[in-house]
């Protein structure tokens, strides 16, 4: 008990002090969300490498690497993604395509293209949507709940807008999201993802901001499971590059031909 109290005390000392919500003059919640999206995602087709490192009870249990191409839809503004599994070796060469609600999985060994649903997870803890490039402002309505002093992923104190995001359509992976955006830089700091039954599914910290494709962007997301906080996935992004991703590639029939550079 004493140990628990000491732990609580020590964490209290490093914790930031919560500030009472104060709604500023008239910051537009949707604009804040869009500005944050623009920091996470370039405005033209691009590619990157994502490495997922999965921990259980502090021990590394899985690693996977994905090559991802992304291109935004001109009309909806939402990204479509072509993903190639690079590692582990048993999955190397397998592909995934997300185009709106279309989600396809392709195995080059059996040449099978299988439609999968958003609930079908292929990557352990991370939902398929977590590795996809997503513009949240397209799929969610944002409301400004206030401003808070919170700790970011680097354990530094930031003044942040707290946005309450509600899904515009039921197809998205998460029903609602609490989303903290840095008030001065529009950087995403933290997100809490909830199910339709309002269960906390995951907490994510966006961190390790680095100059990539003309802007400081987060290169790491730390994902903590909502039920089991000892289940942690570190999602690292590297090899950012603008890529030519023709519109015609974003369909099932192209999958057998896709090979990320």
């Amino acid at each position, binding site marked *: 008990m004493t140990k628990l109290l000491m732990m609580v005390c020590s*964490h209290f000392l490093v914790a930031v002090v919560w500030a009472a919500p104060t709604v500023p003059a008239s910051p537009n919640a949707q604009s804040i969300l869009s500005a944050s999206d623009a920091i996470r995602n370039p405005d033209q087709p691009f590619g990157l490498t994502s490495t997922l490192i999965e921990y259980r009870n502090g021990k590394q249990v899985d690693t996977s690497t994905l090559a991802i191409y992304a291109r935004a839809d001109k009309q909806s503004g939402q990204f479509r993604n072509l993903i190639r599994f690079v590692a582990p070796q048993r999955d190397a060469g397998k592909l995934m395509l997300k185009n709106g609600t279309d989600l396809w999985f392709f195995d080059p060994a059996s040449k099978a293209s299988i439609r999968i649903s958003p609930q079908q997870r292929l990557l352990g803890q991370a939902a398929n949507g977590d590795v996809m490039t997503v513009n949240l402002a397209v799929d969610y309505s944002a409301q400004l709940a206030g401003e808070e002093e919170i700790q970011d992923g680097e354990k530094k104190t930031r003044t942040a807008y707290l946005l309450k995001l509600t899904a515009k359509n039921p197809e*998205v992976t998460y029903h609602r999201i609490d989303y903290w955006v840095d008030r001065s830089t529009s950087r995403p700091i933290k997100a809490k993802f909830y199910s339709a039954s309002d269960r906390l599914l995951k907490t994510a*910290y966006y961190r390790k901001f680095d100059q990539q494709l003309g802007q400081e962007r987060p290169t790491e997301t730390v994902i903590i499971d909502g039920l089991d906080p000892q289940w942690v996935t570190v999602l690292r992004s590297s090899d950012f590059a603008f890529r030519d991703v023709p519109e015609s590639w974003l369909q099932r029939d192209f999958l057998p031909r896709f090979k990320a550079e």
Partner: protein
Amino acid sequence: MMRANCLVLLIAWAIYQPVFADDLDALNLADSAALSAVKPRDWNLFIEGMYGSVNLNNDQGDIPIDRLSLDLQVDTALTPELRFYVANRFDVSGQDHQHETVNTLKEAYLSWQMASNTALDLGRINQRNGVAMGYNPSDFFKVDALRSVVSIAPSSLRENRLGAGMIRGQYLWNSGAITALFAPKLADQRDSATFALDFGASNPRHRWQVSATQKISDGVAPQLIVFGEQGQSPQVGLNLSLLASDALSVYAEYSGGQSASLLNQSKQVDSPTRFYSRLATGATYTFPANVSVNLEYQYNGAALSKADWQALGQQPAAYWAYRSHVFSAQDMPTQYAAFAFVTWNDALVADLDLNWMFRHDLVDHSQQSWLEARYHFPRVDLALQWQYQQGSAGSVYGALPQRQSIQALLKYFF
């Protein structure tokens, strides 16, 4: 005093929502994560060993089975526009200490990406159609494509088969694609020699196919296929799949055309033709905890009805000729069947997958069950497979010589 101070701080902590210990632990853990981005590789190679036992019907006891397989895939760019693919498998399979070696050159072809939306392929290609899981009526190139059967799992049957020598072109537009191919006759007879290219199996007559996909609304992009082969009427194929909810996908795969019945085909005699339809339709639902359940209904109009199936059972020679023909064509022997496939990823412990396949013949009510437990180590898969057949003598699954089998597999990925 100390306790009182801490109590105050505890209350304050509860009110002020600090960063939780778990979050800090997670961030500290992430700080220590080693950067290990892996670069894409042009080749995949695995070796697989199997040892098991087959229990035979009619009290014939158990016999040992074993297998060693080597599987290589290469996909490499010769120039920015020209790629070379090869997929080859080598199996040494043993049953009751009798071994045979089979090499299967599954694919070997050049692919020329003439423009971002136009490509031309030439060589041996595994051309696979179909969105269904257990039975693919529109997968016209599955006929006679099996050279070495190592598992009854549908994914294995699709993967371990001969591609056909062909020239294939594809043109893509923003909302669809058209693919046309021609696979000429290259040989007359099958060749069972270990390293035979076996074009007699993959290219026994001229065949062609045109397929087109067009998106007609969000999430709806049906595929229409027209397939033809020398001396036969063209066949039509149709594939459609939809997302019904964020956890449910549904699909239908159809083929139809004028042909002889499967029974008359097996007798290899000229016989009248009529229009036959084939269908596989099903749904996959994903439950929380990574459990996916697929159910599929299968229909083959060219196969035998209940009365004809029972009648054929009285003629052993014709019966086994028919079964052999149906097996080579990867088709259904009777008209109606049901299929289920359940996958549980990370079952009970991380990296353990449980797979269960169940086939039920709706005409003679025989059934086949296949259960697999597969554990993934970083470079090694360890699997246990159990297969069980049940049914009356002469039924689809009851007539098979094996009643059940169990096997352990070890697969190493280089």
